[in-house]
């Protein structure tokens, strides 16, 4: 089970909101594929060409959202569930479930630190029945 820090899964500090020291341009975030409606995309060609390229990009994002995105989300969810279990087995002491001798837990701790916060949030967050994968698939 790989536990190398994954930048895409590393929780980021919260962005400052309005009136709480908001920055002019927040740092770009890692996100799913596809980018906006394509307005103002730099590149060669005139305004019309830019618009066309933006439209094609938006169309691709739309089609991806309708087709492959649900597989991506499902695969991410499956991986997270396995990794949550792995962290529970190796670092269960954190929530009072000592399964592994502390020596090994401490050896693994540096690798798990980047994702511990997200792990705790996932485990402790209140869940609703509607959050099951099946509900996402019902189209009505």
């Amino acid at each position: 089970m790989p536990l190398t820090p994954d930048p895409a899964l590393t929780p980021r500090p919260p962005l400052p909101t309005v009136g709480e020291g908001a920055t002019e341009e927040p740092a770009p975030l890692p996100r799913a594929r596809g980018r906006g409606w394509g307005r103002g995309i730099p590149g060669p060609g005139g305004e019309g060409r830019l618009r066309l390229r933006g439209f094609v990009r938006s169309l691709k994002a739309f089609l991806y959202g309708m087709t492959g995105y649900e597989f991506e989300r499902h695969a991410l969810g499956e991986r997270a569930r396995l990794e949550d279990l792995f962290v529970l087995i190796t670092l269960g002491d954190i929530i009072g479930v000592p399964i592994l001798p502390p020596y090994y837990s401490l050896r693994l701790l540096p690798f798990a630190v980047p994702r511990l916060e997200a792990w705790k949030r996932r485990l402790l967050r209140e869940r609703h029945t509607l959050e099951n994968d099946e509900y996402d698939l019902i189209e009505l």
Partner: protein
Amino acid sequence: MNTLYAVILAGLVFYIGYRFYARRIDRDIIQSDPRKATPATLYMDGVDFVPASRGVLYGYHFKSIAAAGPIVGAITAANLWGWLPSIIWLLLGVTFIGWMSDYSAIMVSVRNDGNSLSAIAHRLIAPRTRTILLFFIFFYLLLVAGAFGNIIVGVLFGQPQVPLAIVTLVVMGLLGGQMLYRWRTDLIVMTLVTVGVTLLMIVLGPLGMVVNPPAAQGAAPQIVQGPIGQLMVGWNTLVNGITGGAPVISYFDPTLPLPPNAPAGVAVANVNITPAFLFWLVFLCAFAYLGSILPIWRFAQPINYIGFWITFLTIALAGLGAALAVFLKPEVGMLQLAAVRAPDLGFTMEAGRAWQPLWPMLFVTIACGAISGWHALIGSVGTSRQIENETDVLPVGGGSMFTEMTLGMLSLLAVAVAGQGAGVPAFANGVGSFLSVFAIPQHIGTALGFSSFVVIVITVFQLVIRVMRVTLAEGLGDRMAIFRNPHVGIVISLLLMCLLVLSGVWVYLWQLFGSSNQLMASLSLLVVTVWLASTRRSTTFALIPTLFMYITTMAATLVIPRNLWETVVVPNMAREGAGIAVYGAIAMILVSVLLFVAAAFIGLDGWRAYQQYRRQEAAPTPAPAQPAT
């Protein structure tokens, strides 16, 4: 009136509603702010909270909300009241209520740390709202399972060219899951193989079929099935031989025509459940059982994916045909169905007959294309946690709903150009007519319409049974351990569905499903209204739709039991062998009453919460404390 005008009208409403009304609400009242952090960026965990671009989310949300609902609702309403009232409700409903319901549910969730609508209702309205919502969800699922089960079995039994496509769908679903998750095949290759083979079998089904002109004026055309259709007809005949061709159950369905030799004024049995019908019902149960018990990636998800493509291709082609028909084949583009089917709009009530007044019944018959509570619930737990920027909520939530309206509109046009027939056959004929614009033979196009419709509905059906099992386990599993067993949950769900299929009068079943859906919509609108009041914003744009939907749906929930009592229970009570129809109707009456009572509690709690927040708003702000001198 022709289809081009209708398409232009839909486009205009989309543009004007979105550009001038939706944007104004978003800018002036909700005040979406691109600088505010959304839950996806605040709590990003790579699984539930992941920021995605608005283009991807628009596609994702649209796919999550658009499928069988807008199609079935529109074709049922067109048959009951004509195309004009249906179009008017679709356009006005989506412009003033529908987009706002989806949009504001997502926005409220975004502004409340990505909490689901039920969690927000628990906090803002009353703790019991959440329990009532689970109750609504279960009956919503049960009713949709009954309504869709009825359609699917009817088509599998009555259209012998269709079953081959469904059997292929099962095989391709299993293959698709294996290819994608085990063999790690590229998504495009998997799509080409599975969707291609399913489409091929859809086309092979009606191959060799000959449609002869009707023997007499006004009679139905005579159909001679091709080799595959004949094989299925032979199978049905063989199964019917078990009882020597005699029906297993017979009863009177008030929404269907009487047999030609029936004496006037007597409720003669016009529904005969044969062994072959039961066989296809068992087939459907086996299909749903597979979808519910196998891991989601193994069957349910790939089946859903293949179903999406079949629907998408059929609807896109049919839509193009509707737009081009006026230029390429003008006779196809004319609406044949009456604009208004009954001059009194169904308001005249007669004893012993179904009462279908335009208000409130139209507003629960067409749910998903105009407004749907399901969208709001799903949007508040899925889409809202992936919104990267507050300004994306409008194109994603509102834009998707406006786009879904076009799907409802297209279904309506398909039925309207078909002119004759009702329900699914009329829709399939309409799709066949639109596809004939591209020189596809009418009967092949019609078969494609039938098959694609069943594919959409059956994919939703198997998921509904799966979700019923999950809901039963979550709702009752803590109190009765047996409900945690998935097999028990599935069997109970399937038995309940079978009872509705065998006993249910389809139109009432659909309207009851629409009522439960619209009651959920009223609840989501109520949560939005209370949230607006709690944050001291103008509530008018949400309060008026809330009141309209609430009162309308409550009224419809009273009309349905009246119709069931008058037209099913009373005429069938003394009929031998019709017990299942009577018990089914009584069960549906009980469901109506339960929905009504549950909705009354929600309304009461919601009104109290609204008044409380309004009073807080009206209360003067206390003066700042003066420093001691």
